[in-house]
């Protein structure tokens, strides 16, 4: 049972790490600000989400797991808000003040 849980953790955490790598590569390689924002939000939401999901299998009790999920939910809420704000600030054609 522990082995199966560990395997799930390794799978999910590795996938999350790949999303972080993809987000960084996108941030460095994509040509304009809006597509870079697209890469960034993938790392934010899926990368962190998969890592939290993987860590959930290692939690001892429901309260620790709930706390971990709440970290992700806060990051998700903040990430979504911030992505909208940054996209607004980066919109081409709009004079930046």
């Amino acid at each position, binding site marked *: 049972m522990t082995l199966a849980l560990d395997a799930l*953790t390794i799978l999910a955490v590795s996938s999350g790490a790949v999303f972080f790598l993809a987000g960084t590569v996108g941030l*460095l390689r994509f040509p304009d600000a809006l597509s870079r924002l697209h890469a960034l939000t993938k790392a*934010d939401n899926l990368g962190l989400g998969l890592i939290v999901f993987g*860590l959930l299998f290692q939690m001892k009790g429901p309260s*620790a797991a709930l*706390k971990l999920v709440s970290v992700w939910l806060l990051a998700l809420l903040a*990430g979504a808000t*911030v992505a909208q704000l940054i996209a607004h600030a980066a919109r081409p054609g709009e004079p930046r003040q």
Partner: protein
Amino acid sequence: MADFLLAAAGFVLATVALGLVRVLWGPGEVDRIMAAQLLGTGGIAALLLWGEAMNLAAAVDVALTLALLAAFISVAFVKASTRSEADEA
């Protein structure tokens, strides 16, 4: 398991640190703040992984604080960069 989690934390931290090159390159302010945002999220992920590997429950609290602060950074940036527009409205 702890070894794997530590390695994953190091990997995530290394990738987001690599992303900081975007702070140097720019070209816009927006690109720079996005690298900082990625560092914030990567820091949260690395803290959670490290806390579980080291069996430190307090790391989750630190990650929670970092999530809060990382959100404030970008909100403050956008607020500062569009201030005059908001004042007119």
